[in-house]
């Protein structure tokens, strides 16, 4: 019932008609949905949101049978597949918005529309090669030297280099801010800076080198040494050990406290979203 034999001509035609029918149905439903009053529209969105959320919540809370599954677990597979598709359409929305904006710039000849032309040409070229490359990987289309060279030039030697360069600029701004903006004016700022400095030096090999050569601290502690022996105490004063202790014993509880706060807030927000109590969504 849920499968059509597409190896035959009639099967292929049936499937094509079903695809066409689905599009006709989806877009034909729009005038019908438009007749819904605003309250009806909000109710429809709220019901859809609730049902989808209820499925996943119920699947988690329902008791498991022998093989770690429950009545709803088989539904995870089709839900997974559908959400991947919807997720990709959502990601495509960003691309669509970008192209729409720059096409409008070009058509209306807005300020600096020449750069929009560059963007659109780069977009079309890269999209072509990217789709071609991915299809060639799946052996749906042929792989040619033009594809290999073109994709390599656009992806490896242009996109990757531009992406890496763009994000590496932040280092310059951090350095400039370190000189011009990072001011140690209060107790809190002093604690922050001191911790940062100890961690920055302690986690790199230079920290161990400085501890051994400048401060004369031991490189290692004998295996049978008492925890409170002089060697053990001196070893624990090395910058790498202090940095590790700060990260594990001082930083970890702080991060956990933040996690707890975020977790409780997240749970409250999740319930509000699930029940469509959040304004501006529905």
């Amino acid at each position, binding site marked *: 019932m849920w499968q059509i034999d597409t190896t035959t001509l009639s099967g292929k035609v049936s499937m094509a008609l079903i695809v066409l029918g689905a599009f006709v149905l989806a877009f034909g439903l729009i005038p019908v949905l438009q007749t819904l009053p605003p309250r009806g529209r909000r109710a429809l969105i709220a019901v859809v949101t609730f049902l989808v959320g209820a499925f996943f919540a119920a699947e988690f809370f329902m008791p498991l049978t022998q093989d*770690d*599954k429950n009545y709803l*677990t*088989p539904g*995870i*597979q089709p*839900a*997974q*597949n559908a*959400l*991947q598709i919807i*997720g990709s359409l*959502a*990601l495509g929305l960003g691309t669509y918005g970008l192209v729409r904006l720059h096409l409008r710039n070009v058509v209306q000849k807005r300020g600096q529309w020449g750069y929009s032309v560059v963007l659109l040409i780069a977009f079309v070229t890269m999209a072509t090669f990217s789709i071609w*490359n*991915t299809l060639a*990987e*799946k052996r*749906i289309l042929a792989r040619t030297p033009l594809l290999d060279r073109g994709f390599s030039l656009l*992806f490896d030697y242009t*996109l*990757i*280099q531009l*992406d*890496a360069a*763009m*994000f*590496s600029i932040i*280092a*310059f701004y951090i*350095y*400039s801010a*370190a*000189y*011009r903006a*990072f*001011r*140690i004016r209060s107790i809190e700022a002093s604690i922050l*800076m001191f911790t940062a*400095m100890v961690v*920055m*030096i302690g*986690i*790199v*090999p*230079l*920290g*161990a*080198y400085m501890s051994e050569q400048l401060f004369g601290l031991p490189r290692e502690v004998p295996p049978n040494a008492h925890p409170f022996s002089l060697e053990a105490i001196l070893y624990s004063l090395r910058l*790498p050990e202090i940095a*590790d202790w700060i*990260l*594990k014993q001082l*930083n*970890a*509880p702080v*991060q*956990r406290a*933040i*996690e707890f706060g975020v977790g409780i807030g997240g749970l409250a927000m999740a319930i509000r979203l699930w029940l469509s109590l959040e304004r501006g969504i529905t």
Partner: protein
Amino acid sequence: MQEMRPLTVWERMLAIDRRWLYLTLFVSIIVFLLLPVRLPAVISPPVRKFYDAIERLQPGDIVMVSSNWSASTIAENQPQLEAVLRHLMRKKVRFTLMSVEAQSRDISLRLANRLAKEFGYEYGKDWVHFGFYTDLIVAIKGMTNDLPATVKQDVKGTPASQLEVLKGVKSLKDYKMVIDVTPSSTVPYWISYRPKNLIVLYCPTSVMAAEAYTFLDSGQIEGMITGAKGAQEYEQLLGIVGLGTRFINGIQFSHVLIILTILLGNLALFMQRLSREA
């Protein structure tokens, strides 16, 4: 008309054009990278635990590598992924790659292809790439439930049921561990939605590392390699010279530079205030 008093040295220091600062940093990094200094890494406990976890694997075990980084963090994540894949291949462990970041799909595929040739690893038999996924959470849940049905096919279009590397694998429960190489907060999803027996190892960029210590403390993550610095430690454990080792001089001396710069900026401000009060 009031005469403009000349700027003090501290005021001149504070008013320096930021482009001189940029140039200073750029030239300094070049000098640091070229320094003929070799300082051995101190292996931090999270890296040691990461290494030991992979060392405990047996030939034929299967591992999931979730590679979610793009070229924006290539300097931190590429050394990590290279070191980890080398270790897995040394241990003759099967591995499958997946990405939730579009660029990472091709970056990790090309990187793994290059390394596989070195170790004689055969695609399809020893390793595969499952491709790109938009939603990590439902992908993990799907793979925990039924991996072949979720994955469907690899990047080459081979159906999951025909992949030799997945022989005997029904779900993520058959995997020994997942290694998350990522610049974003994806590891909480692996922790939250994985099968309970699946060990999680984490390769974050340094920005994300501090937050992960709470997971290390609770045992939800077994080990962690922090950025390029962590990759240097890992390379030292493997006995190789990789990108982490090549970058470390730049990293450690740039830290000294940043600290000195912060102190200098504060000193200049302090002295300027003093001289103004005087």
